[in-house]
């Protein structure tokens, strides 16, 4: 099924391997990331590993597929999986609140929570999802059960439906850059320097900033920003350390990235970018899952099916009614075959092109199914294709 030169991706071994501790599925929107993550988690759980799947998806698709009424910010057992599979959906705001609480005094946390900027930031921050997904991943990795053992053998993370799949990798670094930014230093300088001794240069730049802020945003907003930054400053260190730590976790042995795509140019292009990026960051790539690959009955090419269907349709007009029924049915079956076989040939072309430029990337194809996955059986079916 895989194109020429492509290695077969062996997910069955990967998910059962005790060394595999974190699997991150990534890819562009609408390629079946969530389903892939859930199917892999289910398969691992059924192989006896204590598994949690973390999704960051506002459409609650995983909940749908797992038959859960709702997912909240803590792992919930998925019934019908023998107790080994848990699932959770990231609650961005709650995770952020927890980070603030864990990194500051109760009074300071209260001040932060009440700041209108924090309220906007924690619920609509572009990138907050990615930061918080990282944060939650770190928490899950460190979670222990009552015996003091690690709570999870395997954590499967479904990355946020980002504009670009790369945002997930960039988020912690963006946070770092943001915190190291000169502007944040300017804004926090007064507090740091006790409000009097900072350099002239800083004063000058700061006054430009202040001027612009008050001119553009209004004075009140500037006050909010300044107090927000001041109150956050104390916890920034811890926050940043954690983000760095989690980022390192992604590079550590035991973490595997599974890139997900469909056999379409855009999805595969995105997958290419991601693979290059993982390589540049020395992040471990397990391979590529190509979802929704068309598969036609073998033995007849699309072209021959089309020609025969056309010829049958011509003869059908002149045939007696009984024969015409047979000819019409054969004609329809061949036209349908032509459509599916054409799609299958296109898919194979796309996959071959991809493999030609990424010969070393192991790949597994999952056929297109007639309907979406809504239950555990559906996930098991997908898992069978993924691990075959």
């Amino acid at each position: 099924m895989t194109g020429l030169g492509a290695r077969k991706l062996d997910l069955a071994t990967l998910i059962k391997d005790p060394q595999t501790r974190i699997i991150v599925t990534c890819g562009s929107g609408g390629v079946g990331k969530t389903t892939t993550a859930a199917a892999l988690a289910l398969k691992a759980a059924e192989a006896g590993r204590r598994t949690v799947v973390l999704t960051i998806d506002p459409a609650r698709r995983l909940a749908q597929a797992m038959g859960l009424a709702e997912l909240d910010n803590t792992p919930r057992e998925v019934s019908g999986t023998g107790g080994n599979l848990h699932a959770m959906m990231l609650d961005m705001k709650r995770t952020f609140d927890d980070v603030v609480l864990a990194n500051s005094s109760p009074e300071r946390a209260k001040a932060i929570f009440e700041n209108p900027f924090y309220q906007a930031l924690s619920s609509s921050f572009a990138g907050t999802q990615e930061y918080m997904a990282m944060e939650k991943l770190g928490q899950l990795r460190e979670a222990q059960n009552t015996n003091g053992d690690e709570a999870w053998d395997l954590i499967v993370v479904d990355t946020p439906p980002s504009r670009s799949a790369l945002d997930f990798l960039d988020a912690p670094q963006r946070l770092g850059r943001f915190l190291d930014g000169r502007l944040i230093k300017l804004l926090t300088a007064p507090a740091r320097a006790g409000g009097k001794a900072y350099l002239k240069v800083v004063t000058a730049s700061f006054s430009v900033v202040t001027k612009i802020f008050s001119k553009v945003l209004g004075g009140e907003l500037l006050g909010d920003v300044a107090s927000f930054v001041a109150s956050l400053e104390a916890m920034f260190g811890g926050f940043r350390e954690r983000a760095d730590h989690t980022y390192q976790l992604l590079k550590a042995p035991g973490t595997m990235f599974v890139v997900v795509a469909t056999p379409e140019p855009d999805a595969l292009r995105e997958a290419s970018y991601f693979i290059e990026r993982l390589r540049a960051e020395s992040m471990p790539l397990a391979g590529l899952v190509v979802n929704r690959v068309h598969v036609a009955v073998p033995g007849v090419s699309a072209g021959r099916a089309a020609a025969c269907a056309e010829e049958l349709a011509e003869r059908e007009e002149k045939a007696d009614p009984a024969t015409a029924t047979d000819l019409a049915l054969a004609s329809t079956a061949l036209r349908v075959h032509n459509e599916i076989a054409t799609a299958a040939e296109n898919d194979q072309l796309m996959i071959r092109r991809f493999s030609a430029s990424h010969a070393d990337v192991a790949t597994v194809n999952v056929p297109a199914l007639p309907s979406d996955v809504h239950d555990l059986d559906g996930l098991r079916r997908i898992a069978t294709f993924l691990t075959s």
Partner: protein
Amino acid sequence: MLDTRGARRLAAGIPENARLHVVTGKGGTGKTTVAASLALALASGGNRVLLVEVEGRQAFAQLFDVPALPYAEQQLAHAPGGGDVYGLAIDPEQAFIDYLDMFYNMRRSARALNKIGLIDFVTTLAPGVRDVLLTGKVKEAALRAGTHGGYAYDAVVLDAPPTGRIRPFLQATAEVANLAKVGPINRQSKGVIDLLHSERTVIHLVALPEEMPVQETLEAAKELTEAKFHLGAIIVNRTRPDLVRGEQVSPSGLVDTESLQRGLATTSVDPALAQDLARQLSRYARYHQQQWRNIQLLQAIGRPILSLPDLAIGVTAGELHELSQYFLATENASEEPAQASA
């Protein structure tokens, strides 16, 4: 001149008087292709239409096979009847500098601030600001005066963020107006909010005839309607005509394999394949029925549904012209969508 719109009639759900067409949809539904072909349809008959992207993907350059778009409006294509489609890829940093320049005459300080990371700061700390800048620029283009009176563009088509982010994107201005309770941002945001919520702005939702995209479309329609935005058309992309005729597949999915075998025996195809082909046909019929049901679900939104055909891989400029025809009213405008055969 303002109201000399070219001779073209638009399909139901694509209002003639809309200045701004916002195109959104679940990721992977082809909203960029839809936005581009809608722009061509609007431009046909001699109109000037601006096609705007805000996600930094340079998707239009790729689609129209032109070099990457600078932060400047640039011609992308000619439409039938003398119209023109222009493209603009809005970059938030440039939009910010524009913004400061336009309202405060502060271009130089804006550049200096950019150097010390202000844009990074602002867009990281208050991400809504990024969306405010983007929507602000869209509004400026949509309402810009032309050199000879009227508007510079007859319509603006925005390839917007996907359905998961569309409401926060469109409401960012209102949010920031809340944060900045007084001051110039508050005053200027009113213009954007007014445009986006007025009937001069319509939001078109792009779906595929599949379950999850349909569910997400239904959710987005509800959310946007509750937030008092105006919906235009529901565009079902990549539909295919059902090839099954009459009773060839029974309601329970049965196919007369013997009849199929007799038919195949008259061709060069091996009749031994009848069983496999019958199974494939049955699966196909089930898939189509499911798609048809999915499209029916979209009717609950109460907006006109436009079905676009599935084209071969890789939509290029030629296919865009073909797709644009579906946004124009035809002689028999009541024609059933391709999927509607049960």
